[in-house]
């Protein structure tokens, strides 16, 4: 992974290793969030940044077969929702571009960070993605 690549947005994840998604917890109502909101929408109080669990289960997914040139994503690519262990948070994510065809509901997946597509500035950047825990078929 090239050292000069930056995350597609600041404050979303730590590159690591190990990579971690940066969420938030409300000190009052204890609800957890991803991404970090400006304030807790229930209490309107500042939230505390927390590192989220790196493993979870695929809730649903899709494989986009048409080009998405907006951020120069691979074609095809898989994305969808993962339910993170213990945190009780469902996060939207890319899935491993090398394993797009292998993703299934209920699959155990783990967090990675790598160069995928370009960022808001049009330059290559880092994105978080999930890959099968057992390494998949490939």
């Amino acid at each position, binding site marked *: 992974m090239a050292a000069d690549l930056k995350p597609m*947005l600041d404050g979303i994840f730590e590159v690591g290793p190990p990579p971690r998604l940066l969420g938030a917890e409300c000190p009052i109502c204890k609800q957890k969030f991803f991404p970090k909101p400006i304030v807790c929408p229930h209490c309107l109080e500042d939230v505390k940044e927390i590192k989220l669990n790196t493993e979870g289960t695929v*809730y649903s*997914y899709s494989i*986009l*077969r*048409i080009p998405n040139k907006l951020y120069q*994503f691979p074609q095809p690519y898989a994305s969808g*929702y993962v339910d993170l262990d213990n945190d009780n948070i*469902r996060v939207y994510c890319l899935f491993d571009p090398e394993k797009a065809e292998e993703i299934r509901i209920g699959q155990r997946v783990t967090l990675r960070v790598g160069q995928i597509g370009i960022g808001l500035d049009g330059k290559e950047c880092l*994105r978080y993605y999930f890959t099968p825990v057992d390494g998949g078929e490939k």
Partner: protein
Amino acid sequence: MRDVDIIGIGMFPFGVHKTTPLVEMGVRAAIDAIKDAGVKPSQVNIGFFANMQAANLTKEFTTGQTVMWGAGINKIPVFNIENACTSGASATTLAMMSIASGQYDIALVVGAEKLNVPFIPLLNPSLRDINVLEGNVVINGFAQRAVRHMHEYGTTKEQLAMVDVKNRKHALLNPMAKFFNKPVTIEEVLNAPMMADPLTKLMCCPNSDGAAALVLCAAEISRRFTSKPIHLKASVLVSGIFDEVPDMQTFEEDQRASRIAYETAGLGPEDVSAVECHDAFTICEIMHTENLGFCPIGEGGPFVESGATSLGGKIPVNVSGGLLGKGHPLGATAVSQIVEGVIQLRGEAGARQVEGAKVFLAECMGAELRGDAKTCTVNILTV
């Protein structure tokens, strides 16, 4: 609060209109509606213009005033409304409120959209949205819903295809649906190019251009203009919850908006004669028939397969052709759904007339935030 009627309708056909400007489509629909209502431009008290993409695609803004003046309407308050696919229904809700409040007597609603420009980008609610940055585009959200719906309920890809076959067949009976001119088979739908599994190109509505318009009037004076006013019994707009990403095999917004609308109208799903819903993707219609209460949750697939939602069936859905058959000119779409309701309840739908239609429901849904629909609308019309 005062009762509100619909006394005029107009449409500029939905299709590909490369050389017709947005404003002209809107003006033509507006003029048809005020002529149909028998009102003069000077009798319109307030105007609402629905559009989603003009600022983005054709670099226009405050188009509503231009459209209204094109139809001879000036001086009055005019609002430009953007609420994604529900822009037109949201404009209708505002028009209804403005009349029900007693402040205005006659309102004009126009929805218009021009999508067939040289480059049509994939739609995104915000470039900085974390989900968009992680690869979400509109079709992904609905493909993920379809994957989950199939997983939970055993919905089949053939059932997903049947929705398109049905709505394309309906569209052939609608002179305002110009996008397609032939029916399709289940095999053609299934064998069309894959967009986002399991959704093939023919399970997605196409981009069409067009416009639609309504004249709303205080019920206490509507008979001055028409002997057949159609009653707008409920016009509901809700937003999503957005708090925790929801389960994707149901539409909570549909359930909530329709419950409010049924209660307001004093009616239930069993009273509805015909439905237009937001069939942007075939999975959407299957889910709407469940979540609006026309069949049990999870049985939308078998329901379309049974023929219940076809013209002549128990509860015909998207008899106009829907978005799949007419195309989806975003700002015009939800207005056109209500136009179809008026045509059906007047008994003027010709070959696509739902026999004895007395109660009509229009549902629309737009944009997504954290897995919830940002906007959802339900309108109920009666004879």
